[in-house]
């Protein structure tokens, strides 16, 4: 009930918005897949994104998930700006290469032609580069905050986006096919598990306790998604509908605030579609999730959404409640073509 109350007009921003997209544009060469898209998702709302094939819906998902950098525009998640144009990006390579080069230079100057000494300094420089470069590529949290303090900004990567609370499924199922259903969910829990490789190698009590508890929790996610008893089946051997469910279970295992579902009922029969729809409703009421849904099945969309946004050829052509969207002439036109006049 509260959710519908909160799902008041979506366009004006409130502090309680989970996601704010500002003027997102994405071009693939000459093709404009998204043009100046403004988008706001209030907390605990179910917002749907609809539109004809090729409208840019999946592209928008990929931009939010950090998989595709937008040509312009920015995205804020729970008040944090995660995706935006880079700032002072040129400074970063300097940070990496200056120290080893400096060491090498000093080495050459100091050793006065002694090749063995130069080699030793070279080795030292190499060692330094070996430490700096992979660290910079792995971008641990402390490194991030360090470069932020230097005024450098780079958009978050997909795993950072997951960390800040976004889980997603894929339109074309992308499971870990040769892993069991349970293992798929356990990978989804990756960021929620704390034990390090050293813990694992030493098999510390903490590690064993965490693993055991993780398996129990993973089984619970499977059950929630309607996959009870399928734990040990390889993902590739699951029937199509169960693979879609497993994708949802894996996305839930990240404990997201915002769940992105890309056509979760595609290819499902009416009974399965009903089950998935009910599941999405439960995710909001029971887990308090916010859901952004791409869906072609209008019964699902109209039945469950608080707000609907319609994309057509990369443009947002309408936004409103299901009732408003149903009556919107531009939407009808986009879906059915221009009525003969």
């Amino acid at each position: 009930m509260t959710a519908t109350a909160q799902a008041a007009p979506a366009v004006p921003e409130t502090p309680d918005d989970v996601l704010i997209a500002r003027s997102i544009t994405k071009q693939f060469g000459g093709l404009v897949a998204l043009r100046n898209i403004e988008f706001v998702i209030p907390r605990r709302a179910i917002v749907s994104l609809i539109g004809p094939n090729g409208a840019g819906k999946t592209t928008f998902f990929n931009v939010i998930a950090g998989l595709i950098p937008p040509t312009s525009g920015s995205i804020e998640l729970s008040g944090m700006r995660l995706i935006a144009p880079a700032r002072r990006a040129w400074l970063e390579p300097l940070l990496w290469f200056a120290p080893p080069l400096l060491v090498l230079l000093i080495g050459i100057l100091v050793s006065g032609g002694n090749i063995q000494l130069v080699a030793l300094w070279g080795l030292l420089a190499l060692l330094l580069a070996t430490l700096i470069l992979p660290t910079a590529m792995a971008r641990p949290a402390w490194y991030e905050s360090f470069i932020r303090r230097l005024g450098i900004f780079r958009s978050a990567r997909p795993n950072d986006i997951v960390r800040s609370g976004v889980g997603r499924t894929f339109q074309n199922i992308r499971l870990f096919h040769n892993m069991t259903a349970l293992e798929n969910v356990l990978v989804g829990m990756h960021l929620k598990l704390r034990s390090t490789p050293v813990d694992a190698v030493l098999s510390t009590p903490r590690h064993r306790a965490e693993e055991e508890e993780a398996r129990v929790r993973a089984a619970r996610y499977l059950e929630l998604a309607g996959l009870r008893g399928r734990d040990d089946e390889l993902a590739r051997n699951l029937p199509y509908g169960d693979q879609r469910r497993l994708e949802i279970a894996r996305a839930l295992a990240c404990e997201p605030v915002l769940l992105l579902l890309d056509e979760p009922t595609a290819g499902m029969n009416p009974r399965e579609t009903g089950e998935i729809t009910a599941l999405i409703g439960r995710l909001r009421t029971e887990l308090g999730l916010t859901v952004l849904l791409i869906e072609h099945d209008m019964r699902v969309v109209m039945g469950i959404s608080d707000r609907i946004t319609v994309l057509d050829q990369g443009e947002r052509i309408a936004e409103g409640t299901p009732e408003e969207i149903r009556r919107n002439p531009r939407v009808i036109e986009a879906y059915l073509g221009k009525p003969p006049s």
Partner: protein
Amino acid sequence: MTRQRGTVEDSETGATALGSTDRLFDFFGRHRSVAIMAAMLLVAIALPLIVLAPPFSGFNTQGVWIDNFNGAGIYVLLALGLNVVVGLAGLLDLGYAAFFAIGAYTYGLLASSFYGIHVPFWPMLIVGALVAALFGIALGAPTLRLRGDYLAIVTLGFGEIVPVVFTNSDALTNGTNGISGVDRPSLPGIIFGASNPVPFYVTMVVMLTIVLILLYRLQDSRLGRAWMAIREDELAAASSGVNTITTKLLAFALGATTSGLAGVFAASRLVFVSPDQFGFTVSFTILAMVVLGGMGNIWGVAIGAFVVFIVQSVVLKQLTNFLQPLNIPFLSSIDFLQYQFLLFGIALVAMMLLRPEGLFPSSRRRRELHTAQGDDLSSPQESAEPLT
């Protein structure tokens, strides 16, 4: 209530009905590290005894056999390390021998009269492994954005560069001639030597046991799952929160560590290091061992490497020696050792055609291939998948 009690009793009688072998398996299932230790101990004791029996006793003396086992152990270590990179993380590395070389040279340079530095063997095991790990990270870093074929070609390049660097830095590494007079390990009261391979043998068995336990534990951890996730679908792994860069670097580092260990051991066993010990054939042999053994299955890879090495270095020679005096036309004139890579190639091709999952596939892969054959055309899932 009564029914419930009934089931409890049933399961209790079931438990007592368990045979002692079942209980043993159950115990080892729960205590895998103990099982690995027990298995390694058994194998380590059995192998030197088996070779006393014909036909093995006719091939070599026990001492030579044990020395061969030490050589095989080196390759088992190498294959186990490469299995992490290729089998678990799915990163095709064609230049893996580079880290073997780095481990061996680290020991060769720091424990020989070449520089007059003589660091003892035992700490050098760790140093060699760490240096190799560092290079694993250094060489891994530029390849992280590459996939599949491109990655393979870049690692192939590294595999070639490293021996060439050792060859051409005459002043630092004695070039083509290599470093001779490398120190043997030493322990009070124990002599490590060519005539006494047993101490090396014990060392190798202990090293292998530790590495096996470590690998099994890692494979079943958060990191192991992340490796497999990257192998299966890198993009989905990243979208599940896996830091693909760190995870891949750790695979490279761990593979290199194992290889470095093998390198230090090899250098001290042969008391000699030279660049031509680490050519492409070595990288290729290790990769073939992993594939033949069954990618991703730790035991399979270990057994595969052991068998391949023994066939290469013992069986082929014995076959030649055995056939020569028999005067069979054609067959007796073949030197099988010369054709070892031909035979190797044939074995690989045959394997890919007949048993693509390797000799000892991981249960996972076997299931996968099994079902793939089972429901070839009648699978309704494929057709139900929408294309958009």
